[in-house]
């Protein structure tokens, strides 16, 4: 099983915002300088940065961050296109692949939150599973990978 990495605590809007900011600056910038120009704490920028890197939208040569082709494609795409790209990329992440498999095998393709949290804490015992769950759900909702119903507390795979 490939190593499951925790997700940086960031939203899609922040990731795309980072790509936009880079694009405004010609596609490449020094990380520290970027943080200063945007008036961001380095820590906040790093979360979005790590996420963008994991999703293969940027590369980080040296102390810089550079927009790559996929990232540019993401920016040019419209809402539907962005979703498709994001969907394709997060499926490559072991965490989402595992969750997807879990849901596929579950009865009725539904799993309650507690079970998912348990699994998460098994894979990543040192992480804050609550926050991890929230981030994962937010990403998968956007990508329409899977959904979460707060009333029943179930995660589910959307019908095709």
């Amino acid at each position, binding site marked *: 099983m490939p190593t499951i990495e925790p997700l940086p605590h960031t*939203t899609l809007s922040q*990731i795309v*915002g*980072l790509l*936009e900011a880079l694009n*405004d600056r010609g596609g490449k910038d020094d990380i520290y300088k970027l943080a200063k120009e945007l008036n961001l704490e380095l820590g906040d920028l790093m979360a979005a940065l790590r996420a963008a890197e994991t999703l293969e939208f940027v590369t980080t040569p040296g102390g810089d961050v550079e927009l790559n082709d996929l990232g540019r494609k993401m920016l040019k795409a419209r809402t539907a296109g962005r979703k498709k790209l994001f969907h394709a990329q997060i499926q490559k992440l072991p965490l989402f692949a595992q969750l997807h498999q879990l849901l596929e095998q579950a009865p009725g393709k539904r799993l309650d939150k507690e079970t998912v949290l348990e699994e998460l804490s098994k894979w990543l015992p040192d992480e804050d599973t609550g926050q991890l769950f929230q981030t994962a759900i*937010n990403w*998968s909702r*956007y990508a329409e990978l899977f959904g*979460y119903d707060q009333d029943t507390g179930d995660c589910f795979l959307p019908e095709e």
Partner: protein
Amino acid sequence: MLLQLDKINHAYAKPQGRVVVLKNVTASIDEREFVAIVGPSGCGKSTLLRIIAGLVAPTSGRVLYKDKPQTGVNAECAMVFQSFGLFPWFTVRENVELALEALGLPPRTQRTRAEFYLDRVGLGGSEGAYPRELSGGMKQRAGLARALAVEPNVLLMDEPFSSLDVLTSITLREEVLRIWEDKEFSVHTVIMVTHIIEEAVELADRVVILSPRPGRIVDDLRIDLPRPRDKRQQPFIEYVDRIFSKLA
């Protein structure tokens, strides 16, 4: 001329006395214009937006919409709020459907329209989420979807990005611009209140500058730059400086 502000004055009474927030504001706004209203805090720009929307009746003066004096809430305007304005006990979709229900639409139409617009702003897949589960960016997208779903003529935005973090507001600004440029959406006229000058120059065709309280129109600039606008280029910076100097 879609909207006309005719000698708008507004004041309200406080225990200490009468406070004048807007003085003699006269302007006109055409269809397909993206207008930004900027000014220091307290200059009455949010109040002006609410007067345009018909939420507040001006102490004197009038608003003319399509050449007719406006009495009461303008049903052809839709507003996006700074703190999102979502009801916490409804899901995002139910929040949008509520606005459609108020229009008298049947439930099935409510649902399809809500889902359509939520999808368009990128919330497809999150319709069943409650506001407390969502980030600021997504909540504002929901607010935007709601405003678009009633298919208004004019979109009013009250400091729509000031409750969002830097990166998220970059994304949303670009999305608002896209929506405005998209021929498919019904809204072609946007009036946005903001205190961030770069934002006004990036998005708007026209910037109306208000003075500190009591708010008077100090200037009304046309921004003649093609979009998308490069913030690092000289013309952009010049506009920003011009507006800054008018505010000082």
